[in-house]
């Protein structure tokens, strides 16, 4: 089940998605022990942020919405979390968000110094003004942020894409040109929940991001579409809940996947379960390596 993402080798292709249990070393170590190939931290910014008031999540049958508001302790306070997590042998990707290329470069440099294995640029948070989506929907800005980070660090740079644009392919292509080592897709889909009986939006921030089963087919599309425009690896995210879901992402062209919302449904043990399901699938279908599966739907 060894998985390769560019120059990196991971013990399996199932990573914890950013923003899910990625704030404390205890949780990240636990996720890794439960069978994940590695973890992506919560997105970390320049300053401590409490995030939005509750309600910050809304659940429904086939997914959820969240508008956490990028709560994080700030990069200065995150060194301890990374070193504890790395000390436990966990493959750790540091996710960062910022307002411009200077912030991103600074954050990436810090993450590298703390010891992460790769850095993931959150260019795509759909519900925080100034960070995320606005930035991630402009090929020029994506190019300049990725380019700056590329200069600033030696570790692999992953660019995480928003699906809330007309053409994900050309934004991913801009990231590749600027030196990204991999594309991560997708972040959540911009959405909102309303309570008719309370006559108001549910999330304190009004807008939030849709994730879970409801976005699986958007994520698959993104991976497939980006794969047509880019030659760097693509990491699939969105609605992965089972080994067969992972297989769909691999077949669509993903080199690895990340799992977020399914952690709410199936608990942190989801990683081991999905890994077993994936092995069973590969055995039944006669695949002996992930490589044989990756992108065959595109051939």
């Amino acid at each position, binding site marked *: 089940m060894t998985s390769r993402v560019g120059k990196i080798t991971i013990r399996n292709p199932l990573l914890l998605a950013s923003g899910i249990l990625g704030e404390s070393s205890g949780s990240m170590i636990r996720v890794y022990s439960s069978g994940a190939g590695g973890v992506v931290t919560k997105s970390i910014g320049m300053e401590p942020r409490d995030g939005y008031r509750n*309600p910050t999540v809304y659940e429904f049958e086939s997914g959820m919405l969240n508008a956490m508001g990028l709560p994080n302790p700030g990069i200065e306070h995150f060194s301890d979390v990374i070193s504890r997590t790395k000390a436990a042998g966990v493959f750790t990707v540091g996710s960062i968000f910022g307002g411009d290329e200077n912030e991103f470069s600074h954050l990436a440099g810090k993450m590298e110094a703390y010891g992460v294995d790769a850095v993931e640029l959150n260019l795509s948070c759909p519900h925080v003004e100034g960070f995320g989506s606005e930035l991630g929907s402009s090929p020029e800005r994506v190019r300049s942020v990725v380019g700056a980070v590329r200069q600033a660090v030696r570790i692999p740079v992953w660019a995480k894409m928003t699906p809330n644009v007309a053409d994900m392919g050309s934004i991913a292509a801009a990231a590749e040109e600027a030196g990204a080592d991999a594309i991560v897709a997708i972040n959540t889909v911009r959405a909102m929940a309303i309570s008719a009986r309370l006559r108001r939006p549910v999330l304190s921030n009004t807008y939030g991001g849709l994730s879970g089963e409801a976005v699986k087919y958007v994520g698959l599309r993104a991976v497939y579409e980006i794969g047509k425009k880019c030659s760097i690896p693509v990491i699939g995210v969105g609605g992965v809940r089972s080994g067969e879901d992972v297989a769909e992402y691999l077949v669509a062209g993903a080199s690895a996947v990340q799992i977020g919302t399914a952690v709410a449904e199936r608990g942190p043990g989801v990683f081991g379960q999905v890994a077993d399901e994936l092995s069973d699938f590969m055995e039944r279908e006669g695949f002996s390596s992930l490589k044989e599966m990756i992108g065959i739907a595109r051939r």
Partner: protein
Amino acid sequence: MQGGNLRIVEIAEVVKESPSIWTIRYRDPSPSKPGQFVMVWVPGVDEVPMSLSYTGDEKGITFRPIGETTRALSELSAGDRIGVRGIYGNSFTRTGGEVLVVGGGTGIASVIAAVEPFVSDGKVHAALGARSREELFFEDRVISAGAELHISTDDGSKGHKGFITDVVRRLLGSGWIAQVIACGPEKMLYNTALIAREFGVPGQYSVERYMKCGIGVCDACSLDGRLVCRDGPVFDGDFLLGSEDFGRFRLSPNGTRIPV
């Protein structure tokens, strides 16, 4: 997804349990067990975790107004609407023998629902502690359940003067207690757990942490790799006393590890 989808409920009744303690009752037939909690949304204000002080079809939450949300809650009346999500978390479980139920302050709200079902399985001692008699509540529920009531107040205005842990130590000293369950301020829980360990009595402790999602995704409530919202809020004493965080560290809303 977890079946804890948001429900908008009408408040059936607001009960003032004492000068500083309120109970809100609302109809919600979702099955629930003692120790479990809900996320309570006060529209326009905030959403906070609250233990179920009543677990039947007419659910209840019991709280002291200490901040914006709990104050807003205390100002609501029958007919007003709130949102609830959950039922979340694990619950207290009866392991046999005589049980000592310990509630400190609003922690009483979380353990009280265990007293009633537990008496049917054997003798129950309920030790309730508060700063003063005005902050005590649910003594009547203990008595009518047929459990033995023990009281302490910091100021001695009722029952033992001093800490509830003094009462705990005395009761455990009797040698009859086979199980402890407790909820209250972390300091008190910590000391209760230490005393129980000293006497070799297994304990279950309901811990509070800042919560955002309530469903095990945001990591806000992390306690040494366990999630209070999902793996807890009830943990056993061995885990807690062995952990780095219990009684010492918690995460602030921005995720910084700070002293409890």
